[in-house]
């Protein structure tokens, strides 16, 4: 995707009525949707292996938060991060190539779906141990303060991650050390097959900020404009005041936990209900109602994105596999590899 087309970060509320911004958000959400649909298809065709977790349904939460960042800001994520990488500016080709395990992938095929990474875009990685990346996000935020840079770290994780120790240790030091971090919890209602209320004593995740005297906010994760507005505020608060915060985005994953999830723990109508509030369709309607874009324009955007995703697949497919003799490359740094 073309980075310059992305909505610039940290804009004022007004900006969110501006056409370019709205179309940018729309475009990004749709890119994630189409990319993930294609990913599922490729997984079925065994072009992609291992565990594969999709972002379908969570587009507004992802784009609303990450688009509030600047290029020099950092993002730490978990294993459900394809869309997070795309939103931070990592190219669809490099992401798809990584899912295909190719040398041209973001992690040269060593990481796969759960371990995307881009130094250039400061997408500081997908991590597959629940909660593991929160302390790392604090470390990068500490480095920002250490060097007195006007940068911010966004740490993204799921509802299930808020019950593990690393979450607690991280929020405590973020506040204690005045770290420029925005903790974003993508509350998609389930941790694998376990509903939030079966895993967390407090189901309103944002409330957990109280134990750290930290700003806690909750937002409708199906409304990209609402998410972007609050994200702008919290990112500015982190950047200008070094005041960390916890933002809960209430959303839903339409697909199973991973491609192998039988998905028997929730009702079909529950899924339908959430799909009825689909963020992409809502923004499309809004754009047309506000006469900011015509059905036709939106159609063109979809076609362009579909083409972009097809290109990514073609690129991934045609890319070379890692050379077997490079098995040991990059185990250690500074060894001529």
């Amino acid at each position, binding site marked *: 995707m073309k980075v310059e087309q992305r909505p610039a970060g940290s804009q004022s509320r007004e900006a969110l009525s501006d056409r370019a911004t709205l179309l940018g958000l729309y475009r990004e959400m749709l890119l994630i949707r189409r990319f993930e649909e294609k990913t599922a298809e490729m997984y079925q065709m065994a072009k992609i292996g291992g565990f594969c977790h999709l972002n379908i349904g969570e587009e507004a939460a992802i784009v609303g938060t990450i688009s509030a960042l600047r290029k020099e800001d950092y993002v730490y994520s978990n294993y459900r991060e394809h869309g997070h990488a795309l939103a931070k500016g990592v190219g669809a080709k490099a992401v798809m190539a990584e899912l295909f395990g190719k040398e041209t992938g973001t992690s040269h095929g*060593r990481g796969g779906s759960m371990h995307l990474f881009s130094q250039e875009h400061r997408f500081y990685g997908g991590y597959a*141990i629940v909660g593991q990346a929160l302390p790392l996000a604090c470390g990068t935020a500490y480095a920002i303060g250490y060097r007195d840079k006007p940068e911010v770290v966004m740490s993204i994780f799921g509802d*299930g991650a808020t019950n593990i120790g690393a979450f607690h240790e991280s929020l405590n030091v973020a506040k204690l050390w005045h770290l420029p971090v925005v903790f974003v919890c993508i509350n998609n209602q389930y941790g694998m097959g376990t509903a939030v209320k079966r895993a967390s004593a407090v189901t309103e995740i944002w409330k957990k900020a109280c134990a750290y005297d930290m700003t806690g906010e909750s937002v409708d994760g199906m409304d990209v404009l609402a998410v972007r507005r609050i994200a702008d505020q919290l990112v500015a608060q982190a950047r200008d005041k070094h005041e960390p915060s916890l933002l809960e985005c209430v959303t839903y994953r339409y697909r199973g936990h991973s491609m192998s999830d039988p998905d*028997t723990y929730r009702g079909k109508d529950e899924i339908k209900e959430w799909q009825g509030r689909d963020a992409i369709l809502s923004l499309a309607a809004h754009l047309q109602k506000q006469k900011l874009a015509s059905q036709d324009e939106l159609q063109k955007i979809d076609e362009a994105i579909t083409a972009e995703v097809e290109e990514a697949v073609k690129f991934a497919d045609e890319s070379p596999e*890692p050379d077997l003799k*490079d098995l040991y490359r990059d*185990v250690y740094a500074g060894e001529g590899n």
Partner: protein
Amino acid sequence: MPVLAMRDALNQALREEMMRDKDVFLLGEDIGLYDGSFKVTRGLFKEFGEKRVLDTPIAEEIIIGTAIGAAMAGLRPVAEMMTVNFIMVAMDQVVNAAAHIRYMFGGGTKVPIVIRTPGGGGHQLGAQHSHSHENWFAHVPGLKVVAPGTPADAKGMLKAAIRDDNPVMFIENEGTYALKGEVPEGEHLVPLDKNEVKREGHDITICAHSRMLIVAMDAAAELEKEGVSAEVVDMRALRPLDMTPVIESVKKTSRVITVEEGWRSFGVGSEIAARVYEEAFDYLDAPVARIGAAEVPTPYNKRLEKIAFPARADVVVTARALLGKN
């Protein structure tokens, strides 16, 4: 005898022990309503209810710690760690608590818990979901460590582990859950401290456990075609480490190969090798050959991953070399 997949043999063991003893309960992530991420606990939540099949938050220290505290109060918890990699966040509970509590309290209490968890790789799960750490646990006094490689042993050792009064690390393997084999019905117990010859032979001894036992058996079958008679010793009992069948075998073969799915250095094979020399030095004609995973964090790429883990061919080639065949 009924033929069962490893996961069903484990399920049967859990079910039988829960019926036998109401103090036995299970806890772990998504083991209940979700039926277990690898379906080992399938149906038990429905049958025994949420008190005895406890779904936990994603909080491994709580899973192990709850098991320990419940065990000290008289229950017999069986905790599931979704994969051994996740135990890293609860290592303190396993090592500093479960393993040491009895001794540090002068025998004043005991910790009869079983920690079931799959190790191993080969499924393109990458560097944070593919490793094996049984050598770590086998290093710790106070723990018992087993890693069965057949459905029958899986059932028999799990039942024995649940009845044991000590913390038992019960190492399973994602790659063997679907493995089928004959499994005795009902009361079938396999001791936690006995290794076993799974295939007799006289030219060379192959030591392996868990999924590598299968690899070793395949290699032995292939070697037979070449006229090489390999004896395969199942190292299912890692702590206490039963060397008897290995030493007996070495006295016949004077050549040993160890195979493990984990990294080779400071691994299970290192200990087996050191013990073989200590106990059968004069019988050896060549150094013990250790085969283990390539020493890299497991790569995602399928082809790289494939060459990173030991396979039949590695064992066969190593055997030939040890026997001086081409």
